Each structure stands twice: as structure tokens, then as C-alpha cells.
């Protein structure tokens, strides 16, 4: 039993990373209805920028954090301005394909920079394990878990209570209507990409805290997408719940099923979950069913 809980806790810790990655995707979707495949790159570049200052230049933690946020936000803004803005008014699927193109181009830049090597962040959080009721929890993971939950709360509050959030929600409801009430929709798009990029940077840093920065890191965006879709795409709560759940399923599944199928459950669990969710609830666990009219 204790073993099960240990697997579960470890899984949920990882799951909070998925949830963070998914959060950025949900944010962009909420305001623009674009599903971003490129988000994994923002996550990876966020981690890389942070490494540049912390590991590369040897700056202290806080001094590394801020330029990493700024640079990632700039990258997000750049994507929005250069690639997505020209597509406003075209079918949403074109924008989806555009984020796919951006993913590939940035993947090239990322690979070019890494040159086949890996980068490891110096430990910037307290190390060691916390022991409670016979369970052992790595302290640094616990911290990133808490950050994730706090960030979710913060983003939700921004969305609910600030003027910016109101504008974003209005824009998400109906672009043209929002425009007519004096909201500048294009600016909202830029803000949302900046916000999403900063969330991505947090996710990237938290991820790089538990694993190396290597050429596959951007693919965590696919896990994030899976979580976002299973959660219903426009639900932050859905992203959080499904993210934690996915981490749990992967880890517990791997622990108990790996011996039965000869390993590798972790590599495929997310995809199987996605397929099952899409078959049972095509619009996600927390999403609204879209009706088609004729």
C-alpha cells in the first residue's frame, strides 16, 4: 500500500509539470481559439534561457529568472506578431498548422543550439527528501508542485477579476462583439501570448529542475496538449486535474503494468488516455459540447 502511495505521489509531482505546460495552451486557446503546437518550444526555450543566465553566466536565481521570463515573453510575442497575426480572419485550422510550422522551425533552432549535448541546471532549490508517513518526497519537486498550484490560482484570478482578464474573456466569447465594445482584440492576443509564454517559462524551469535540457524537451508540449485536450481545452481547472491525473496514471501504470507488458508503459500511457477520452467524451472531461447548426 505504501508503495502505491509512493508511486502516486511521484506521479502527481510530475503531473503538475504537465498541468503547467497545458495551462499555457489553455490560455491561448481561451482567448484566440488557436490550439498551439508550438507551446512545447516556448517551454523548452524558457528552460534554455534560464540555464543561460543561471548555469551559463552564473547569475543568482532571481537575476536569472527575470531575463528568462522577458526573453520567453518576447519569443511568444514574436510568434504572435509575425506568424499568427497575418492569419487572423482565416480558418482556425490554418493557425493550428502555423503553430505546427513554428514548432518545426524552433525545433531546428533548439537542436542547433544544443549541438547534440545536454544542459543541466545547477541545483537552485533545496535538495533532500521530505519524509511523511513513510513516504519520501523530493523537496525540490514539492516546491515546483506548489508553484504550479499557486500559478494556476494566480492565472485563474487574473482571468476572473482583472480588467485584462475581462477583455480576454470577452474576446474569447466573440471577437467582433469584443471589438465593438472598445476592446482592442489584437492587443489582447499579444497579451495572452505573453502571459502564456511566461507560464511556459515557469513550466520549462520546473521541468528542467527534474530533468536535463535535451533535444526532446520540446516534445513535452505534446503531453501538455494531450492534457489540455482531455481537460476540455478551455478549462484551466480541467488542465490541472487532468495533468495531475496523467502523471498519476503514467507512474502507477508503469509500476504495475511494466512487468506484465515488458516495459515502456510510460511512453504510451498518455496517448492511450487521449484516445480513450476522445472516444468517450470528444470535447474533453471539462469542456463544453459544441453544437453544429445548419
Amino acid at each position, binding site marked *: 500500500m505504501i508503495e502505491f502511495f509512493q508511486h502516486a505521489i511521484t506521479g502527481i509531482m510530475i503531473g503538475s509539470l504537465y498541468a503547467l505546460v497545458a495551462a499555457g495552451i489553455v490560455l491561448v486557446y481561451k482567448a484566440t481559439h488557436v*490550439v498551439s503546437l508550438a507551446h512545447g518550444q516556448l517551454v523548452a526555450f524558457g528552460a534554455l534561457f534560464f540555464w543561460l543566465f543561471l548555469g551559463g553566466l552564473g547569475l543568482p536565481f532571481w537575476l536569472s529568472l527575470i531575463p528568462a521570463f522577458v526573453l520567453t515573453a518576447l519569443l511568444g510575442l514574436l510568434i504572435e506578431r509575425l*506568424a499568427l497575426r*497575418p*492569419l487572423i480572419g*482565416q480558418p*482556425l*485550422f*490554418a493557425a*493550428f*498548422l*502555423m503553430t*505546427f*510550422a*513554428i*514548432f*518545426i*522551425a*524552433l*525545433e*531546428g*533552432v533548439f*537542436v*542547433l543550439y544544443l*549541438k547534440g549535448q545536454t544542459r543541466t541546471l545547477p541545483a537552485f532549490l533545496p535538495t533532500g527528501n521530505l519524509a511523511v508517513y513513510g513516504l519520501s518526497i523530493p523537496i525540490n519537486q514539492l516546491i515546483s508542485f506548489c508553484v504550479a498550484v499557486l500559478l494556476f490560482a494566480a492565472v485563474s484570478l487574473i482571468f476572473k477579476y482583472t480588467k485584462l482578464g475581462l477583455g480576454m474573456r470577452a474576446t474569447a466569447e466573440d471577437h467582433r462583439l469584443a471589438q465593438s465594445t472598445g476592446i482592442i482584440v489584437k492587443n489582447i492576443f499579444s497579451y495572452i501570448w505573453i502571459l502564456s509564454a511566461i507560464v511556459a517559462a515557469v513550466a520549462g524551469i520546473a521541468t528542467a529542475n527534474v530533468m536535463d535540457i535535451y533535444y526532446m524537451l520540446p516534445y513535452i508540449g*505534446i503531453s501538455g*496538449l*494531450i492534457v489540455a*485536450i482531455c481537460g476540455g481545452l478551455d478549462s484551466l481547472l480541467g488542465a490541472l486535474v487532468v495533468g495531475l491525473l496523467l502523471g498519476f496514471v503514467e507512474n502507477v501504470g508503469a509500476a504495475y503494468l511494466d512487468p506484465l*507488458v*515488458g516495459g*515502456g508503459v510510460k*511512453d*504510451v500511457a*498518455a*496517448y*492511450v488516455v*487521449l*484516445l480513450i477520452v*476522445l*472516444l468517450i467524451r*470528444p470535447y474533453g472531461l471539462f469542456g463544453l459540447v459544441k453544437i*453544429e447548426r*445548419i
Partner: protein
Amino acid sequence: MRPCGVFDKSYGLDIAIIRTWQHWVILISALILLYTFPLFGSYYLVSFMNSLAITVIVVLGLQIVSGYCGQISFGQDAFMAIGAYTSAILTIKFGFSFWIALPLSGIMAGIVGIIGGAPSLRIKGMYLAMATIAIHFVVIWLILHMEITGSFKGLYPPPPSLGGFEFDTDERIFYIIMTVMVIMTYAARNLVRSKVGRAFVAIRDNDLAGEVMGVNLYYYKLLAFFISCFYAGIAGSLWGHLITVVNTEQFTLMHALEYVGMLIIGGMGSIPGVFFGVLFIRILNELVMFSSPVLAKALPWLGSSPAAALGLIAFGLALIIFLVFEPRGLAHRWEIFKSSYRLYPFAH
């Protein structure tokens, strides 16, 4: 393409693809050129053409399901893998001849494609795209975890042979690959202008209206997946017997993404577009390959082997440029060129 002044005298002529004797001349000389190519082309060019033709077959399939039927699939490389493995298993473990294994691997991939296409009955657009990414990974995972597929080690299918003649070099198997490609192109071109092709486009452009016209959505979506995966399976089988080794590392999501990129650049919903897209990306790749050592020498900060990364960047940028400036792809440019040729020398 037809010059100005050629008009249709009957509906039969109106629906014909090849309309004038000039067309026949062009077509026949192109075929002769193709089949004599190994006689004068270098080894490098012949193997380039081989892989080009196999990619054309895969992307033709993708064009049918995505470009015509509107169901974007990022799973095409996994279905190619199924074809490659089916063919390898049939020839190695069951002693089938290549000639029987080839169609069977297409059918096998097609059948799995029907299962893989099942989500399209409930979801569309980018939901479906994500589901097909999931299918890619599940298929590759299953292949890795089966015994008959040789797991990590993979399989080594033999080259095809016919009556004692071994197609064991690139120049020899060239003829098989090109023949299959020509047949598959012919079939695809005809399919998309038949009843089935129109049903596919109906689903793509307006599925609900299609239903009102009597199109059975379930049947035709699954048919599109079957055909598309059949193409992928055939290509996979050819690929396996060409390079005589099959393992899961050959079949990556990045390839599947590349196929979709080829469609975008070539033009969705156009058979010539497939050729344009495949050629464009492949030539772009070759250019990057050749120029990257030079670049690496001139710009040391690129590292010693930047080809793969630069290839991705070039591909991504090309896609971005096309999506912004010519979302209908090279095929659209070709149409514009054709219609201006048709009207020449009159401006309108």
C-alpha cells in the same frame, strides 16, 4: 493543359485529363525518360529518385485523406511502418514472395487504418490531428513490444526477385518502385474525380450538406482512411525491400509531420501538388545538406554538423512563408500558370 482554341466537343472530352495529341507526346516522353533514367542518371540520383517516389506514394495517400477528405492525419508514417513490417514478416517468416506481400501489406495497413481512423467519426480538425499523433505512438509502441517484429533489432527483408532475377540494387528496384508509383498516381488521379472523390470533398467542405446529398459519412471517412493507409502500406513495403532493413527508428513522428508539410506546400486537394510538395521539400533538404558543411566552416558557431538542425529551420520557415503568402500551395500557382497558358495570346 491545353492551348487556346481547344474546346470540348462532348462531355467525354470535357472530363478527359489528356485532351490533345501534345499531351500524349509529353506524357509518353516523360515515361520514357523515367524508365531510361538509370541508364544515364548517377547512383546518387537514382537512389534519390527511389526515395522520392516512395515518399510520393505516402503523400498521395495523405492527400486523399487530408487534402480531399479533410481529415488531417499525423499518423501516416506509422501506417508506413505497418506496411514495411507486414511485408518483412510475410517474406521472412512465412516465405511469401514480394509480389504477394506488397499488396497484402497495403491491405494490412489499410485495415489498421480503419481502426486508426475510427476517431474521425466523432472528432474533427485539430482534435483528430492529435488523435492521429497518439495513434502514431501507440502503433510504434506495439511494434516494439511484439516478438514477431523483432522488437528493437528489427527485421531484414530480402530484395524482391522475379524468375531468378534479383532486384538487389537501387538501379534494379528502381523499375519496380517507379511502376508502382505511376500506377498509384494514375489510380489516385482518377479516384478523386470519381463519385468517391466528390464524396470525400463533400465531407471536407461541408460534411452536413454532404450527408443531405446522401453521403454516408461513416463509410466514406473510413474508406478515405483505408485508401490513404493502403498507400502508406505499399510505400512501406517498397521501402523495406529497398533498404532491406526495417526497424522502428525509421518511422518517426517528424516524418509524419514532414508529409503534412509537403501537402501544405504542394497544395491541399491536388494530385500534382503532391509532386510539387515532395520535390520542394526534398530538394530543399538536399540543398541544406550540401551547403551545411560550407556554412559550418564559414560560421564556426554553427557547430560541426548543423545539417539536421538547419534542415528543420529551412523546412519550418518554408512552411510559415507558404501559410502566410500562398496557403493554397504550389498547385495553385500551377493552376494560375495553366489558365494563363490556355488563354494565351489573349489577356482574358
